[in-house]
């Protein structure tokens, strides 16, 4: 008797599953999502150093201007050209995504740290849209423009044996940004941070950082220090 009931249940379940599974024709994947627009990526000239921020392709997501998100994409950020290069597996092409079509992009690196990049208009020297990595997102954001530039260096022989005198060098630029006050450049050091506050605030800030055992030595500690200072509410000078 039990076996019969169990069999009946099995039949009912399998029927209901088959109905739900075959109720719709399988559609082309992501047919109704926004399409990525861009143009073919051309290889960077070969010099010493590395023009990309990411050594390999990373899996991440991009956000379009209308808020739509496209997930699980293979891309890498070209710090040299300030462009996002995405790999389209369907047509095996490396495509530079149109900057004007994106709001930003994000990915999680191999050690599990999330990186969020935002496209913002930069009104300083070399005006235009730039991808900034958001290190701290609050009323005043801490942003970094991960710039790689071609610098003149002492002549060297490349792997191919060609004599060259240029190399890719990193030149990261850190900014405090607020929509009302704009950008202000900051060095990622203790003195750089203190210089953004008035004299009366500098001593309490130092004390606060000492109390929290924060010693600014690299980018991570700088971000930590800024978050600590921002939490207390010291007034930043733009």
């Amino acid at each position: 008797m039990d076996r019969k009931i169990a069999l009946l249940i099995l039949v009912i379940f399998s029927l209901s599953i088959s109905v739900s599974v075959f109720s719709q024709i399988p559609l082309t994947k992501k047919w109704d999502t926004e399409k990525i627009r861009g143009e073919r990526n051309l290889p960077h000239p070969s010099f010493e150093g590395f023009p990309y921020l990411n050594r390999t392709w990373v899996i991440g997501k991009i956000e379009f201007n209308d808020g739509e998100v496209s997930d699980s994409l293979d891309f890498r950020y070209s710090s040299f050209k300030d462009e996002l290069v995405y790999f389209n597996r369907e047509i095996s092409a490396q495509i530079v995504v149109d900057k004007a079509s994106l709001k930003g992009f994000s990915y999680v690196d191999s050690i599990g740290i999330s990186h969020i990049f935002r496209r913002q208009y930069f009104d300083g020297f070399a005006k235009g849209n730039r991808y900034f990595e958001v290190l701290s997102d609050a009323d005043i954001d801490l942003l970094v423009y991960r710039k790689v530039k071609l610098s003149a260096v002492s002549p060297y022989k490349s792997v191919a044996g060609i004599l060259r005198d240029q190399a890719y060098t990193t030149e990261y630029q850190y900014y405090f940004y607020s929509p009302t006050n704009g950008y202000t450049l900051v060095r990622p050091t203790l003195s750089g941070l203190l210089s953004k506050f008035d004299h009366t605030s500098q001593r309490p800030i130092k004390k606060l950082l000492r109390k929290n055992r924060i010693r600014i030595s690299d980018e991570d500690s700088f971000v930590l220090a800024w978050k600590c200072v921002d939490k207390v509410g010291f007034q930043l000078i733009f």
Partner: protein
Amino acid sequence: MKKRIIILLVLIVHLTNGLAAGKSVLSLFTDRDVYVSGETLLAKIYLPSDNLSRIVYLDMVNEQGIRISGVSLEIKKNQADGYLQLPDSLSSGSYLVRAYLKHTAHQLKVIREIKISNRFDGLEKMNQMNRVECSSVVQTRNTAKIEIANVSPVYSAGSQIHADVEINRDLLDSIDGDLFVSIAQMDPSFESVAFFEKSSSAESGLVEKKGIVISGTVLNRKTKKPTSGITVYFVVPDSIPGFQYYKTQSDGRFYFMLDKYCGSVDAFVECFREIPTEPLTIKLDELYAESGSLPRYNKQQITEELRNSILRNVDAVTFQKVFNQPKLRFHDVGKQAPDSYPYYGEVSCTVDPQLFVDLPDFTEVSRELLHGVKFRNYNNEPTMQVFNNPMRNYFDEMPLVLLDGIPIRDLNIIKGMGSTDIDRVDICLSERFYGNLRFPGVVAIYSTKKDYSRLTESDQLIHLKFETVQVPYSLEVSENLDSNIPDLRQVIYWNPTVTKNSKILVDCRASSVIGLYKLVVRGRLIDGTLISTEKQLEVK
């Protein structure tokens, strides 16, 4: 024993789930039951609370199941409201107003019977009329917990009507979404009911979660079999054209999403044959549901009361047209910000040929004005090539050529276009990508006429003119009417989205059309029960 109980419980849970899924609270209400041709029908639709679709369809079919008109409405808070324009040429008789969701249209529709009288050959001339014999009627519960106060039984024409709708606190918490209040003319001798048309068909479509879905099939014209691997394009021509594409699979099907459009849209659906021996044909699916099984009708005598009421309404509608009194006011849709640049990319250069000396054809235009575009017309076989700027050479393949945003392959279409025919030309001198599509350069020509007359419709190019999501509207209330012109409204108050509150004020002015009116308050409870309260009033 324990085993049996568990098995029984599993079975019960499964069955109750099935029942719950099948429970439907799709319902449809119209402003009135009897109309005159040329009028506007207002409708309110309640949708199931587990509804995932953003679009509901409202259409009207005649007794033979032929569709007269239809609209698609946007669902908000599982409710929708809209209007149907009743053509002036409609013959007198019974019509069915239907509401349904596209993906469940084969299984469930809610239908309401209405009567329409032609202005020149009306129902009043008939002795009998058809009445639908309905089996599963949409149940609405009259509730005493909604009270309509301060309504006089009689109002004089043009006088002010103030009514207070008071809702019991207990009921207020169990109301799902907005309430709907209307005051419209009524006829006690004819009251229609909404009923369901149910079918056990397992056929189901796509859930229109984001917007209207246009679908169809690409067939081989010779074999009539679906064709796979064909790229179908959907273009909405504009200064920055809308563009979508779909690559067909083995079933030959294609789908396009219309989530950013409102009102009337001009669109093109197009595909190209890759192999010359494979002629293709595009078969578009109907936007609206098929007529399905037609209900049975009974004959009923037309009462003298209804006859008089129709005569009065025919006059009212005729004079409404004479005095040009619109029934509805249309609202501007907060248009979504258009793309900052076209789908084919940021252009390398834009050329306006009208700024230069007149050039007779496209060969001359390209030679003199379009740098990086090589257009040749040898032996009447035109070819085009675009310069690839980053690679410093010409592409071997033909670029994407667009005429008013619509892709074209036959360059004979544009070869005769001189500078007077061209408004502007956008050129992209690089290898562009849009999704999985690759364009070896782009030449987008925008014509001065924009009448698409150069494009001939065929099995592979279909010009669509259709209504997307209906534009928001409200009932026109003309406050400053000339005292010599009668106010000929038959619906004097219509608010389909009243925020629930313990006290709702209804403020309006009675029209010049005398007769019986009904103030109705409708709503839906969280458990799906439809509730209503109504009060009758007379305008003398």
